[in-house]
């Protein structure tokens, strides 16, 4: 286990920067999620950390040592790939044992560690099967056992849940997180799925166009997005953004945009909201519309609790008084960065 630190990492492919100066500190034992849209450079960054790609410039430190020139096999990190990269010609046992064999660990010790890792993940009954005989969830556990057995300095995961169906994904999320907390392993987890990011990460680094836009705990990212990209990338539906008179932008989350009478105390800003369409989703009702006096490229959305909002209070085509608590309003300057003061 070790902390991972990067200093201004740049990776160019044919003059195009896929990673454009990322500096990130992942303390020992932290679960760090790299979140970003596809093609934002997060996977390239992960591959630089494990050594599958060589950065164009910048330093990478694992456990305090600069490992820029060290090949993957000597970095001691483990990686779990999107489709797991299990070795099809090996049994599960040999898959798990492989990282130990390459380090010439004595035979008895290999056997012991394989047993330990497979029991930890509950796959000790599968040891003599081959990867193609396993289900998706079982494959994932084998990949995890293989990553863990060598006692890595850090565990890197590249969208490991994207090959699972939705139901399995929820339980797999739990499993990875529980497991990581139990062994206290420094973990860097790449995903484009904000639900995974919010649910699993100790901290999240939001990445776009090869740059880190914001690093913070899930509540920080969600409540106080650093800029318009983070504000609109995280959250479903995304934060409403409207241009403000006198420059800059105003942002508020759909769940904070409520009918005026639902906000009891003062300190709220009122808006006139015309409802165009509403979607009933069971636990919530998403309402789309426009706000009087504000231009917005996207329709404004409000997320309402159906139990508290009468059907006829949001009739389409009519103007309704809506409001946002002042404490829930976020301000951004003309270049899209959040301004701390009001």
């Amino acid at each position, binding site marked *: 286990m070790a902390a991972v630190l990067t200093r201004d990492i740049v990776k160019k492919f044919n003059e195009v920067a896929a990673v454009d100066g990322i500096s990130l500190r992942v303390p020992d034992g932290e679960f760090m999620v790299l979140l970003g849209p596809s093609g934002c450079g997060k996977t390239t960054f992960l591959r630089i950390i494990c050594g599958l790609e060589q950065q164009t410039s910048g330093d990478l430190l694992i456990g305090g040592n600069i490992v820029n*020139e060290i090949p993957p096999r000597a970095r*001691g990190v483990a990686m779990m790939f999107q489709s797991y990269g299990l070795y099809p010609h090996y049994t599960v046992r040999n898959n798990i044992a492989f990282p130990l064999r390459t380090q010439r660990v004595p035979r008895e010790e290999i056997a012991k560690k394989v047993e*330990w890792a497979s029991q930890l993940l509950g796959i000790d009954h599968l040891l003599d099967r081959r990867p193609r005989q396993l289900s998706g969830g079982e494959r994932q556990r084998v990949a995890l056992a293989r990553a863990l057995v060598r006692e890595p300095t850090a565990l890197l995961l590249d969208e490991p849940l994207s090959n699972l169906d939705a139901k399995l994904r929820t339980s797999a999320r739990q499993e990875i997180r529980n497991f990581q907390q139990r062994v206290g392993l420094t973990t860097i987890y790449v995903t484009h799925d904000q639900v995974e990011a919010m649910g699993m990460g100790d901290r999240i680094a939001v990445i776009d166009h090869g740059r880190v836009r914001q690093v913070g705990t899930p509540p920080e990212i969600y409540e106080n997005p650093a800029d318009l990209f983070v504000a609109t990338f995280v959250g479903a539906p995304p934060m409403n953004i409207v241009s403000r008179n006198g420059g800059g932008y105003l942002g508020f989350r759909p769940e904070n945009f409520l009918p005026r009478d639902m906000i009891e105390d003062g300190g709220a800003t009122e808006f006139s909201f015309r409802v165009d369409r509403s979607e009933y989703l069971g636990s919530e009702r998403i309402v789309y519309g426009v706000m009087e006096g504000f231009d917005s490229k996207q329709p404004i959305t409000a997320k309402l609790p159906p139990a508290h909002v009468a059907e006829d209070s949001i009739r389409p085509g009519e103007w309704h008084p809506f409001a946002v608590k002042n404490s829930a309003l976020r301000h951004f300057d003309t270049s899209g960065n959040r301004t701390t003061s009001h």
Partner: protein
Amino acid sequence: MSAIAEPVVKPTSRFHFIFDRRAVLETVLIAPAIIYVLLLVGLPLLLAIYYSLSAYTIYDPTWKFVGLANFKQILQNPTFLDTLRNTFVFTFGSQLLGLVLGKFGAFLLLQPFPGRKIVRALIILPFAVPVALATIAWQWMFDSLYSVINWTMIAAGILTREEAPNWLGNPYLAMLCIIIINAWRFFPFAIVIFLAGITAVPQDVIDAATVDGAGFWRRNYQIILPMILPIMAIGLIFGIVFTFTDLSIVFLLTMGGPGGATSVLGFAGFQTGIVSGDVAHGAAISLFMLPVLLVVVIFMLRFIRRREI
């Protein structure tokens, strides 16, 4: 206290990691093949060009440079011009025949029918069997006295024994014979290439065209054909190159005869350079293949590239 111990520490010398550089490893892995090919294809190719500009014979192995004199002499020789013409007739005649047979054969083999696998295996035979051995079988079938083809025609009453042709003794028939054998050898290859191309066309594309109202012919010539053209181009490169430079069929069947009527470039180069030992002229004759090959290959490669985009 977790179950994780300290990581295993490994030695880290610079030299230790030289093969961990992708570029280094890729170069090392490909080097033997490149060196082999450079020494035994690249070098001989240059030597062949030099020979053709020299006065080299096996009796007088000098390296005297004579410029284009060999080419001049060859071009003034009417027999050589015949050889050149024969080569083109042989190549394009047999490729055309082979393609037509291949297209029809592929069309038949596309339909499912009982015994298709066996039929396919039988139809592949001409391409699978060594051409020299197949040629010798054809020679026996074209035999002046015991030709089974003649026998059949006589038995069917099409010809009398006196009218029966001497296949390899008549200049036109001899050319026809080598064209037939070569087309026969290549049509299974054409079939297989067609089939590979057509099965690679996604079924949705064909379905979409059908739904859009494209009939059988439109589907074939406006949808499927353009999509399989790159694959066909590859097949045609193989066919043209191997036919244009072939020696074995002519050598075994006609020895260029009768009267030079079936002499092709490969055969003429062999006769002059190896049998008569006039290496310089032999090399010059063989080199006439090069421009044609280059044109074919460049044309085809461009074509493939363009289709990819």
